[in-house]
């Protein structure tokens, strides 16, 4: 019995089922719905528009190839984002941009400028539109090293635990903690700095 579904109105679950049976139109609808999220995650980590486009499109090809493996244990959005993140990390490794920090670097991170700065209480939500706050967070993320930014993104936006971040980034638990600490302090300092600049 032949059946047609209204792709634009169908829920993700239904589109996933259709895609799993080889329906490429259903898959195209899923791509259209989630492409910004996948591209956004890739861009947040890689900070390069062309790289983010390439990796996000590569992710969709992988997603199609692995659709049979998706059993619905997590949401479709979570599942595809994890695939995209793994590709981002592979991309960084190929470019040798993602490197395990040496002990000296770790100590620099913890004992360096950021640790010596006085603690800052950041409350930029005051008198700030959400869009503006997001822009500031983006500016601050752009100024971090790829290792610190990735650790922060995986922990804060993907809700991954230290152990899982360490596995994905190929580093020790201690390195994850160090990177997160450094990233948070840097973020606080940068946001406070941006606020001071605005006040002038």
């Amino acid at each position: 019995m032949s059946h047609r579904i209204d792709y634009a109105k169908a829920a993700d679950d239904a589109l996933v089922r259709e895609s799993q049976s080889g329906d490429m139109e259903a898959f195209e609808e899923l791509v259209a719905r989630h492409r910004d999220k996948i591209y956004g995650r890739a861009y947040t980590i890689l900070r390069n528009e062309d790289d983010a486009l390439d990796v996000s499109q590569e992710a969709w090809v992988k997603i199609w190839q692995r659709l049979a493996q998706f059993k619905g244990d997590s949401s479709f959005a979570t599942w595809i984002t994890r695939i995209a993140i793994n590709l981002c990390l592979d991309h960084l490794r190929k470019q040798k941009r993602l490197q395990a920090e040496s002990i000296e670097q770790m100590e620099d991170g913890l004992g360096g400028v950021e640790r010596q700065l006085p603690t800052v209480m950041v409350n930029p939500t005051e008198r700030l539109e959400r869009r503006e706050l997001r822009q500031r967070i983006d500016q601050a993320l752009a100024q971090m090293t790829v290792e610190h930014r990735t650790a922060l993104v995986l922990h804060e936006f993907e809700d991954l635990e230290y152990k899982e971040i360490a596995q994905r980034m190929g580093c020790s638990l201690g390195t994850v903690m160090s990177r997160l600490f450094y990233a948070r302090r840097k973020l606080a300092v940068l946001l406070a700095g941006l606020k001071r600049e605005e006040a002038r």
Partner: protein
Amino acid sequence: MIHPETALKVQACLDGELPPAEARRVAGWLDQDPELRLLGEELRGTKALLVGNEPEFSVPESREFYWSKIARELQPTSSLEMAPGPSRLGWWLRVAVPLGSTLVLAAVLLLRSGPGAFGSRYLATGHEIETPLEEMASITFRSESARMTVVWVDTSMN
């Protein structure tokens, strides 16, 4: 000055990564040490700031263009791994061609064996049976509508 290990413990405590007993111990430090407490508040504030405020980005390409590049990559994959069933045209041709040939041959045999089979040159519009020389024992059947020519050679006469 806060010791690096202590700072990381405070952070791990705020992230819920410490076992309960150790988390209680760190909470005790935060109660007693104002400097540690300030650091904890900063880390907590930064964490809270990020919740729901993730920067958003849009693909800088149209839906069609973005999809076309993905579809191009999927084409060989989909034909190999998620190949659909045989096309309807292929199925039709596989059935129709032998069936048609059989019917044509059957028609020729019927005409040959019937009364006056060779006496009539034209049977119907567009259908032609030609026997150039009877002793050659060959019959040519031509159907214009089917765009087909069948040559029947009778070897039993030799």
